[in-house]
């Protein structure tokens, strides 16, 4: 057992939470200096001052929109998160999503250190189950830039299920976790053992689909009403637009509790009272195709688990946007069961991550009140996407195709190997291209890396080459190509921590963050 504090962090698109497991074995979220346990994932860069994260930053989005960054989780693994693919630049400095996430993580770290009155380094950070390799590595990089030692990155549905199960509500069976947050949507089918063990059977979703999109639907309706009544374009004024987005979010949340919501809007110097009913909001969701898309992902994920909807024994709703009545009704209709909502909908993911961190670091006394946690089996991690290599389809006209060696949802650590043949006579070299994705069509897979190798002498057509893939528990992926006759290692590839930022950028940001207190 160790006394060094460890925390679990839910790095959300709209809100983030940091939690820990107390000596009683219960996980609780940590409040910041303002007493808030759910901290908006928003960063404001005031002129001449240090960055500010949280509610204050979110308020500045209305008055200083060009210096405020939000929803940057959607761009993790890339250089930008803005809709028009511009980079986010303030005072000549570019802030990629990793850097902004690092600032949020640092804010959470500060809150945890204030709570523990000492340094906090070790953390588990959650990610959407559908995040691929690039997004996961970017999350780890963000944690490192914030001064954290990221023990592991775990899937949000797994963390939520862990928190839910330890709350005593779980039964053995197959659960479907419906995690609809501010920016991401995950559906996960998990097998729950009688001993509380969790095994992911399948996962699906869209990591660019969430509450923010529903807010924009409401803003579009607002803009139409304002245009009709005043002739003004609500979206032409950035301040009016930001104000409308903030109010849209409030109305969306209110419509989960009430049938009608009303807010005043100002545009072109005139004020308009905007009213939206729950039925109208449901109509917007249906017309936009969001409800159909959610239903498709649910059915796809259940089918991927080799099941029918009737085989699901319980449904757990996670994430703030899962409160939307239309989605609750949808899930109930498709699965045929009333879904369950956790008591701490916004904090469950962080709490589950805290449980996982405590278990890994053995910070809980196995003989104390947290004995149940200590005895709980560690949830099985899985490969979120299929892993494979590019190869020539000799029977398909010699086209390049993707060959999956490790299927999606395979428990990790995992390894696989397959033998291929040299594609031409007198072949002297080969190129090993590692891919992520489940399709054979290369248009729908992502290249993770490539390397070249050379045969010791020209080989004939069909000469065997064995490709071995390994996916470790800490999500390192390595691939090797081996001469099938001689056993020589032809080439080896380890997927590096390739993020969208360069090492120089990372070092510069690390230095900046180390000397900055996030407000």
């Amino acid at each position, binding site marked *: 057992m160790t006394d060094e504090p460890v925390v679990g962090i839910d790095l959300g698109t709209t809100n983030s939470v940091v939690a820990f497991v107390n000596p009683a074995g219960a996980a609780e979220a940590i409040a910041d200096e303002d007493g808030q346990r759910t901290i908006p994932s928003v960063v404001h860069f005031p002129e001449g001052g240090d960055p500010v994260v949280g509610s204050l930053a979110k308020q500045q989005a209305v008055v200083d929109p060009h210096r405020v960054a939000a929803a940057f989780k959607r761009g993790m*693994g*890339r*250089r*930008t998160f803005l809709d028009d*693919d511009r980079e986010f630049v303030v005072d000549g400095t570019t802030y990629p999503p990793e850097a902004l996430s690092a600032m949020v993580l640092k804010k959470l770290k500060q809150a945890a250190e204030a709570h523990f009155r000492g340094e906090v380094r070790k953390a588990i950070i959650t990610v959407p189950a*559908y995040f691929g390799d*690039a997004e996961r590595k970017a999350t780890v990089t963000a944690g490192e830039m914030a001064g954290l030692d990221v023990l592991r990155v775990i899937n949000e549905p797994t963390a939520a299920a862990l928190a839910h199960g330890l709350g005593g509500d779980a039964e053995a069976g197959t659960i479907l976790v419906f995690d609809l947050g501010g920016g991401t949507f995950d559906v996960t089918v998990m097998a729950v053992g009688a001993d509380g063990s969790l095994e992911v059977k399948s996962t*699906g*979703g*869209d*990591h*660019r689909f969430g509450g923010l999109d529903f807010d924009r639907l409401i803003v579009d309706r607002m803009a139409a009403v304002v245009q009709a009544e005043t002739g003004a374009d609500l979206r032409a004024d950035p301040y009016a637009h930001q104000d409308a987005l903030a109010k849209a979010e409030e109305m969306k949340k209110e419509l989960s509790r009430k049938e009608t919501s009303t807010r005043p809007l100002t545009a072109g110097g005139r004020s308009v009272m905007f009213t939206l009913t729950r039925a109208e909001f449901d109509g917007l969701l249906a017309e936009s195709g969001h409800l*159909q*898309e959610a239903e*498709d*992902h649910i*059915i*796809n994920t259940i089918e991927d688990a080799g099941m029918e909807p009737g085989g699901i024994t319980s449904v757990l709703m996670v994430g703030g946007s899962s409160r939307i009545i239309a989605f609750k009704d949808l899930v109930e209709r498709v699965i045929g069961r009333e879904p369950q909502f956790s008591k701490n909908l916004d904090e469950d993911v962080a709490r589950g991550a805290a449980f996982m961190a405590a278990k890994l670091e053995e910070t809980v006394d196995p003989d104390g009140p947290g004995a149940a946690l200590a005895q709980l089996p560690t949830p099985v991690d899985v490969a979120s996407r299929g892993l494979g290599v590019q190869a020539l389809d000799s029977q398909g006209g010699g086209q390049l195709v993707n060959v999956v060696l490790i299927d999606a949802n395979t428990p990790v650590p995992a390894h696989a190997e397959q033998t291929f043949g040299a594609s031409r006579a007198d072949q002297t070299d080969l190129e090993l*291209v590692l891919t992520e*994705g489940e*399709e054979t*069509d290369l*248009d*729908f*897979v*992502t*290249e993770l890396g*490539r*390397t*070249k190798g050379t045969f010791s002498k020209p080989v004939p057509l069909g000469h065997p080459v064995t490709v071995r893939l390994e996916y470790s528990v800490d999500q390192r992926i390595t691939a090797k190509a081996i001469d099938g006759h001689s056993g020589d290692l032809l080439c080896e590839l380890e997927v*590096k921590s*390739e*993020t*969208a*930022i*360069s*090492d*120089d*950028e990372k070092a510069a940001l690390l230095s900046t963050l180390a000397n900055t207190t996030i407000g």
Partner: protein
Amino acid sequence: MADWKTQKEPASAARADLLAYFGIPPSPESDLEKNIATKRRKWVRLETSNPKGEAIAKRVGATIQQASEALLKGAPMPTPTAAPVEEPVVRATLVPVEDLLDHVTGLIMGGDLRGAMEMATKGQEAYPDSWIPRFAYARVVEVAWGGGELDDPRHLEAAIRSAERALAERPDEPAVWATTASLLGAAGRYDRLDEVVQQAERQLSGLPAGMHLSLAMGLLSRGDVERGLAAAVRAVGAAPHDRAARGDLAATIVEVAARMLPISSSDVMKSYDEAVAVAAWCASGVPEAEAAVLPHRVWAARAGTRVFAGNHVLRTALATYSAFLLLPLHTRLGSRPAWKVLWEGPGGKGRDEVWTLWSFNSQAPYAWQDTFVQRLHHAGGARFPWWHAVYPAV
């Protein structure tokens, strides 16, 4: 048979093709809604693959929606089935500088020149002190220019600057020399190209084949035939199996050779002969290039033929004597009004003399001047079957 679930667009807007798009037959028509949902879910899944896959999947999703409405609600099916969606620019993830060139090369080989250009450009911003992204950028422009994907000369100039900077840092890299030479040739900067080739010959133990080719094409294009032919010979010698290069060289040399016609002097004859011989050697084994060179080979075989073979003194004496013989003709005709002579035309009393005199006056110089037969043919408008191949502008 292709899987209907992965079929991206229906064959047509006809009902039978729309049904086939949803797997009917072999499924019964009662399964239409189920199959629509199956297909839609298949493509919803692909929207989360990668940016390019997402664009394709969204486009197919729209097509599925339109096709299903056409079948279920009788809505018209737009033609074409869906408006093509511009695939988004694949925002290249920045890679470590030591891997940048491999990645850019991979993108080039995969045909993604936009992605390669973007990665190379971002590389120059991220690694301003490294020669690698500069060379990578120059390489992308070289390929794009050669393939006709770029036509703005500013790109070429920027690429040349990048390549020259990369060359200054890595004069030991043959590939950098080759790309620099190629870009200079494309920009028509043959003097600088000359210098670069000479520097490369001093710096490297052997010139990359591409450099010889760039130099040969450049020299031939600006009319430096002798040096151009020598460079062409070196280019083919360095890469004898490069059929494309041989074909290009042969075509360029043939163009240069055609501009030498008609043969007007011994020097021109020699140049033409040599050019055709080199073109024929370059084209050897490349059927389409051989066909282009063949007319010139035939022509060149006769190019040395003169109008009047024989002793020059005798030729001159005969011409002079003929002139004397025709003197009376001149005198007689000089006493008659010109209009009458011309009016009477051939067959008239003085007509034959006029036309005889005119013919002599027009043809005699070819004898006096020791002219090549080609000039006579050209002047006489003679047409041979391969004429158009030799004189394409005529």
